[in-house]
Structure formats: C-alpha cells, structure tokens
C-alpha cells in the first residue's frame, strides 16, 4: 500500500530541524538544511508557532505536474509526484504552481526539490509531529 507523509502533529514541534537535516542527508547527501523537501519555519519569530511546509500529496489533479512543460513530474501512487531529473529543464514552473509553497528549487542542481514521501523525516522526528499514512492507490 502506498504511504504519504502527514504533518498533523506540528503543535508538538520543538524546532530541532532533525527532519530537515535527515531529509537533506538521505535524499541529497548534503549537510545543508536548504536541500530538504520539508521546511520547518516559525511564524512570527521564535515566539511564534512552528509550522511545516511540505508536499501534501495531492490526488487526482497535481498542479505541479500540470505546469511542467517537459513531463518531468509523474504522478506518484497514493498522491504527489515523482521527479524524473533527466526530463527536467529547470524552468521553476512547478515552484509557482504549488499553491501550498511545497516545491523549493535547488539552485546548485537547477532542479526542484520534490518530496518523495520516503518517511525519513517521520522516522527521525523525536516528538511525533510527522507520521506516514497508508493510502489507497489512486492511479
């Protein structure tokens, strides 16, 4: 069964950024938090709440894939998309098309950073803010 990431426990977030560090590490072999597909932010400085911005695994219609002119974003089973880097031209249209702001752009690689729903962030979240959910295959 396909799985998707759910970040519905963010009220418990302590802001340790381990999710970002492990996402960058595992998916991009990089020490930088900038490569992470999940972004933890504060709204209104550190005294504000922690929020996460990450792919919400759209089903049926995927705006990012629709916006892609070269077919580099293919529908992923259960929601979201899979990036085919060899087909990507680095036009950033997917970045603008995602209205939750979950597609970031990797300027070093000239490619979007697309969440794979691999679950590494949830596995390393010490406070149960993130979890993986089984979903039906929608394709």
């Amino acid at each position, binding site marked *: 069964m396909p799985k998707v990431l759910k970040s519905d426990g963010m009220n418990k977030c*302590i*802001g*340790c*950024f*381990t999710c970002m*560090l*492990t996402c960058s*590490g*595992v998916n991009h*072999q*990089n*020490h*930088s*938090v*900038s*490569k992470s597909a999940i*972004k*933890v*932010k*504060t709204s209104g*400085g*550190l*005294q504000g709440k922690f929020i996460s911005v990450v792919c919400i695994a759209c089903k049926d219609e995927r705006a990012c894939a629709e916006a892609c002119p070269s077919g580099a974003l293919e529908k992923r089973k259960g929601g979201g998309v899979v990036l085919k880097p060899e087909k990507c031209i680095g036009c950033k249209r997917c970045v603008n098309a995602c209205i939750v702001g979950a597609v970031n752009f990797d300027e*070093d690689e000239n490619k979007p950073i697309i969440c794979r729903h691999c679950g590494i962030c949830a596995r*390393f979240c*010490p*406070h149960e803010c993130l979890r993986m959910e089984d979903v039906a295959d929608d394709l």
Partner: protein
Amino acid sequence: MIYEKYIKVLYIDMDTKRIRIEQRKDLIEYLGGVGVASKLLEENMKPELSPLDESQPIVFAIGAGSAIFPVITKTVAMFISPLTGELGESYAGGRMALTLFLAGYDAIVIHGKAKKPSYITINRNNVEIKDARAFWGMDSDEIGRVVRDREPGGGKRSIIRIGPAGENMVSYASVCVDTYRHFGRLGLGAVMGSKNLKAISIVGDRSIPIKNFKDYFKVYQEIYNRVTDTEIMSKYHDAGTPINIEPLNAAGGLPTKNLRQNVFEHGDKISGEAFAHKNLVRKMACTGCPVGCIHIGQFRREFDKGHEYESVSVGYDYELLFALGSFIGIKSSDEILQLIEKVEHLGMDAMSTGVVLGWATEAFMKKLVTEEQTLVPLAFGNTANYVKAIEYIAYKRNDFYKALSEGVDKASDIYGGKEFAMAFAKNEMAGYHTGYGMILGSAAGARHSHLCNGGYSVDQSMKEFNKEKLVDAIFAEEKERCMLNSLIICLFARKVYDRKTIIAALNSIGYAITDEELTAIGDRIYKTKLRIKKALGFKLADVKLPKRLFETPSLSGQLDEGISYELIDMYNRKLEEFTAG
C-alpha cells in the same frame, strides 16, 4: 572546515569595516571550538589593555562536529572578561552553530570599534557592517524583531544581540542568541557594547555535500537512537533542568538568601514540578538536538486596571530559578518569571544578577549601605523592588548601582561585606553549595564556572571524601571538557558522547583521529587557556574564598576553610607540573 585541512577564520574590523578570510592549517591541531577560539584569543588579545579597549578581540567558533551530529549544537565565544579581567569563555546554543557552519566559517574574530552603533550581517556572498543608530537603546526582544524584519534568511538565520545592559557595559551583560539562548556569563554583552556592536545576523544556506554518506549516516543513526532512547531525553526534556531544585533543596545544597541558608523553606513553590504545573507552555530545541530542553514558562500580568492583562512567555532553567529565586528569597514561579523577563530584556547574566542582588540585600540589611544608595529598600522576597534594582544596575543609576554593575567582588571592595560576596575569583557563584568539589572546581576552573569541570557533580557522585581523588577528578574533567568543547558537544549529552562515539563520529567525516590524540587535544587546549590566564595576571594562589561558604552547611555537611585552601594549593601544584611538562 569540514572535509578540508584548515580552519576558516573570518576577521572583521569594526573600525575600518575591512574583512579578511584566512585558511589556517596550523589550527587543525586544536580541532575546533574552544581549541581554535583559545588560540585565536591568545593571538589577538592585548593583555596590557583594559578588557573593554576597542582593540580587544571577540572570538566565536563552532566545533568539529557542529550541526553534523545530534546534540552538537553550541557555539563558543571567547574574549577578555570585563567581570574578572581574565579569560572570558561562554557557550550558546540556538541556531548559531548551524548558520555559521552553513555560512562556511569555522571562526570569527571581531576587533576594533565602530564609529557609530552598528550591526553585522553575514550572508552567503557578503559580510557587511550596517547602521544601527536607531536600534541603540532597544531591549533584546525589540532588536531581535527589527533585525528579523529587515534581514532575509528566515529559517536559516541566527540573530545574536545585546540589550541596554550591554550598551552600558555592565560587566556581566549577556548576549541573546535566537530569543531563548544566551552567551550568558562573564560579560560578552559589554564587550559587544564597547565595540558599538548591537547585533549580528548570520544566514547559513550553503550546500555542503556529504563525502562518505554510508559511514556518516550509520554513526548519525546510532547517536540519534542513543540520545532519544536513553534517560537524558526524559530528564532534560520532561521537567528540564529545574527538576534539580527539589533534590538539591532536600539534600541541603540549594544556595538560599545569599547563602545564609542551604535550604529554601519555599523550595516546593519554585521547583521544576511547580513550574511544569503552573507555567510551562512549550518546549523547544536548539537546531540539531532531538532532546528539546528549552522550557518556556508563561505568566499573566495586569498592566492596567479594568482587567487589562497580557501574557508573558520566558525561558527558564535551573540556574535562573536559583539565582532569581532561592538566592533572593523569591517564593513563587510567577515572580521568578517576571525577574527573568527583566534580565532577559535588559540583557544581563541571570546568575550574576541574582548573586549581586543577594549581596546587596544583605549589605542593606547590615547597614553597609543606606536607602539613599539603594533607592528602594531591598529585602529577600521583594520582587517589585528587585525589578527596579535590576533596571538601576543596567542603567548604572548611581554610584552604588554602578558598583553593582561591576559584580559582587568590586562592590564589596568599595562597601565591605567581602565575607558574604558570593563569587569565585570574581565570577558570581552557580547554584550549588554541594561541597569541596564545587569550591575547588569554581576557584580553579579556567573561567570559574561550575561547568568548567563539574565540581558540583563530583561532590554528589564521590562516595568517600578524598583530597587526592577530588583534585584528580576535577583536573581530569577540566581537560576532558576542553576536548568535548572542541567539537562542541552540549554537555547534557556528555554521557552519550564517550570516547568511542566521538572517534567514530570524527572518523566518519574524515578526521583520522585516535584516543591518544583526543587526550593530547584536551591537554593542548587547557595549556592554551592557562597561558592566557597567566598573561592576564591570574594567580590561583591569590584566590580568596568568601567566609560564608564555611558558615552555612553544604550538601556534604560543614565545610572547612583550611581544607579548601589546601585543595586549591594541591591543584595549583598539579598545574605547575602540567604546564612545565
């Protein structure tokens, strides 16, 4: 620099606005953190000049493992302390280490004085010194807010700043890092103030590819699992460091009312449990730490008649509850939070402030000073007057408060009451009246902090008192912490980071290091610090201990003055051997 054979140092001259970058191969033998910072302080300090002279340096450094492994979260600051006149060393968590790492610097050396109030921005492609004239006078909360709005990089940024106490060069002014963490001790805030430096904003957004992912991630996971599976998670995360109030009070080791007592009769009202029940609203973590020990407490304040309330949130920790609680007889959690908010906004070290107020209260009670000098009648437990007194210190309201702004040692030089001026070698005491370990550890520790060597912890773990064993334990721990602080591991995780783990971690990121080399690094760093102290005129044999330590019983019972000086003498001889060898 990770994966490179050099340490990358950014030099900033506030006076000429020039910057310079050096790749220092020679600093590799100090590994990073406090090792690199000590060496840079030694090279750049001017022992013959005042600590607040504009040519004195401020050094920041991250460690060899910073932001790479769990709970390696600290940045070290080194400077000449305006409080003690000698070695200044302080640590802060927050996001600073990650941002410096991802900005691509291992260390920063700042010298010179800006002609006008300024702030520094460090970004991917630029380092700038900018106008902060309109920011001068702002409290540490406001300045954080305006820099946050003005500068880019949210989420990958760290903002460090001073409040009015730093601007006014209070000798124990602190530096706020990312709202809830601090370079608290020994007056870095005053040194920033002396340079007209209000704030530093650092953005870390570089790409640093991992070289050997498989090895690295294996070690990362092992450490992560141990951190989250062991008791350190529960102890520091659950009720946090304030959980220590209750056992220390029960055992007779909680300094109370200027150490006239070792037990606080209202201890239960200011315990970790009390705060957790009444005030705790949130927990947070430094970047890269899954523990999350930062505890935020909230209280409600009526600011006007007609049910006009605001809610105020501030961070609290054990040392603050001791210094702004038991030490000055404050018996409610709400009142302590109110005092914390005050020192936080003004930008002062909470520990020194509390200990200074304790001394001032006793000096007033004993009529060494009059109400004309104190402006308000100081009394243990009187929060409203302490709030005023803290403000008077920050703004050096009169000669008396100016003396208080220079610490208890200086104030007691002028007004007397040395026997109850609770400092070790001019640094105000920490919240542990535990025994000879605390006394020796604080007196002999390189920066006279309880964290130099954990003497208070030796007191509580040593089964039978033995002078040689105590001296040896403190000496060994001081050196070990020099090594730990070259990575810079948060000391809460010291039990996770045993030698084997440290070697595995360093090996996985390309340092071919052995156990013997780690020992040699610790020795090298300690010797550097001792050279700095010597150059700045410190002599351990000259340290005088306040008599109060021997009047009020400790957790280990009544302490003897003669034995304390004997221990210091034994340690001193050990140091002579160490530095000669």
